[in-house]
């Protein structure tokens, strides 16, 4: 394998949470020992329930949060040494809510062009030309240059967010729930756009989404997170056709595909997502797992490697 574009090594994030008045602060481990490598041109899907640490991991990759332990390497260079500005040139986010991620008082042109101004790229006229070129590319009419976000629809706003993310020609784009706030007919337009742009600018994506159909459509590889750890990682086709981890299986079975007559599946998951302040012993998934064995409460499973895939589950200990 060629040198990975992004490498996450044993990243761990802890937050100190107040236990209440006169009580000691407690550690909340949002991300625990996550390792991932991402090659250029890949699309990594990151899935899991809310509170599993996806977004915390995203903040670490963006350099917005320093991990408690572990390192993030970009082209083999630790992100911590790269500096914020240098990292921002190469890694950019697209967030979920285009209603709150754009400054309502700025014009569209100024929002998209801000990264150019921050990084002092070119003269004023040159910057404007680049912004307009990017607006063309993401399907925004140039006449919207002086409009404010309030005059735009949700889909148009998300196009603005994408244009802003791509204006510095980053190598890695982190899409955190890029279409969750959009209508179905707009969602498909944004997904199509993201795919076209990926090919055109040979981008690498990390796509975080709770919509597994979207992840299946976009991603080349998928990592499943549960309570701060990656429980399974595999090529998309393999993961969707033969999920190994019981949690992945439950997650996939809860996808409601538009096929009438199949009914609503019974996921056999208990109802309680564990309290991250008081995580279960051993495998964090054991209280909800239908295959739980005595060993699951005692030891945390280590990831077992299969061809191009890994699974952290005691069911595969003998394999």
């Amino acid at each position: 394998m060629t040198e990975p574009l992004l490498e996450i090594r044993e990243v761990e994030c802890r937050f100190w949470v107040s236990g209440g008045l006169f009580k000691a602060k407690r550690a909340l481990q949002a991300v625990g020992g996550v390792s991932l490598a991402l090659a250029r041109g890949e699309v990594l899907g990151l899935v899991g329930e809310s509170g599993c640490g996806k977004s915390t991991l995203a903040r670490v990759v963006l350099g917005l949060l320093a991990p408690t332990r572990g390192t993030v390497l970009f082209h083999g260079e630790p992100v911590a040494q790269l500096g914020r500005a240098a990292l921002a040139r190469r890694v950019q986010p697209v967030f979920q809510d285009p209603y709150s991620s754009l400054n309502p008082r700025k014009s569209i042109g100024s929002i998209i062009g801000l990264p150019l101004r921050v990084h002092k790229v070119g003269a004023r006229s040159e910057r404007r030309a680049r912004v307009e070129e990017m607006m063309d590319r993401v399907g925004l009419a140039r006449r919207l240059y002086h409009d404010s976000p309030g005059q735009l629809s949700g889909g148009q706003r998300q196009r603005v967010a994408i244009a802003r993310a791509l204006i510095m020609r980053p190598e890695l784009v982190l899409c955190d729930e890029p279409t969750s706030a959009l209508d179905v007919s707009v969602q498909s337009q944004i997904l199509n756009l993201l795919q076209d742009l990926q090919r055109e600018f040979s981008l690498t994506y990390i796509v975080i989404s709770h919509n597994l159909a979207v992840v299946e459509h976009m991603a080349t590889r998928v990592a499943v997170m549960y309570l701060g750890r990656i429980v399974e990682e595999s090529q998309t086709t393999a993961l969707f056709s033969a999920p190994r981890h019981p949690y992945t299986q439950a997650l996939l079975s809860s996808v409601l595909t538009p096929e009438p007559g199949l009914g609503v599946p019974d996921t056999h998951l208990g109802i309680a997502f564990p309290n991250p302040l008081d995580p279960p012993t051993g495998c964090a998934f054991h209280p909800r797992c239908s295959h739980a064995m005595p060993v699951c409460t005692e030891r945390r499973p280590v990831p077992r490697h299969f061809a191009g895939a890994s699974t952290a589950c005691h069911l595969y200990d003998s394999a």
Partner: protein
Amino acid sequence: MTALLKVEGLDVEIPLAIGTLRPVRSVGFEVERGKTLCIVGESGCGKSLTSLAIMNLLPRRARRTAQQLSFAGRDLRGLDERAMADVRGNEIAMIFQEPMTSLNPAFTIGNQLEEALLRHRKVSRKEARARALYLLDKVGITAAAERLAQYPHQLSGGLRQRVMIAMALMCAPKLIIADEPTTALDVTIQAQILHLLAALRREFEMGVMLITHDLGIVARIADRVAVMYAGEIVETGSVEEIFRHPLHPYTQGLLRCIPVPGKTRRGAHLGSIPGMVPSLLGPLRGCSFRNRCSYGFAPCAVETVPLAEVAPGNAYRCLLTPEACALNARVGTAA
């Protein structure tokens, strides 16, 4: 068999300074006992306003008119606010999208559950508590007795939505109106909540009217479907008819927009519906979908498009013949 809820020619008008907004226009459908009707559409299509109109919970300045609005043989149109308040939460219960905001943070779960019954029935607090315990258990909440003493913030989103469902069931309603009941929840919790709703519907023989934008949910839970666009029902039929033989170009377009694992080729372009929803101000002429429709022709702009029945219970609102629409569906999938 007579329908539990029968709506015909429902209109909502909102007078504004710049003209009259007509967000719901001649909407009609039926919900049968023990069956689920899904109303599906994108934001602004009037699906939520339709449910609020039925419950008479519209904003004050909105005007509601209907040719028929009957529930279990009673005409809801003539009921005054007090009579309607006796129906709401009692015979028709609602479940809203936001379990975080529709529970009162200042009262315990138990208090809020019991109130629903105490308001409508002559029962003692003890009896109300027993019913609350029974229903919390029914909706799959363990340690129900302890939960009763807890406040909403102590519960997770999934648990809160279960509490909302239990609350809706307190008075054993005949009809449940659920407006996007699982939108704010994780997929795993969503599947559980819908599974629960389907099971309870069977057990208590309730009618369910479920409002959603998610075609996956519709396919899995609905018996009958009404597709709404820009304030009108553009197609209605059984779930099989809508998903297997969609007629209206909008329904067909929506179905092409969503990726289906194992079916849609990875990375392939998804279908899309270009353009935007039209303004619903003032007098409206022609087909409301015409500016986004790839099959539009001149008459679409001028003629009033009726909801034409192709088979009993299956109707669509388009000037094209059913045969032409069916052909569009096939050609569209191939493209």
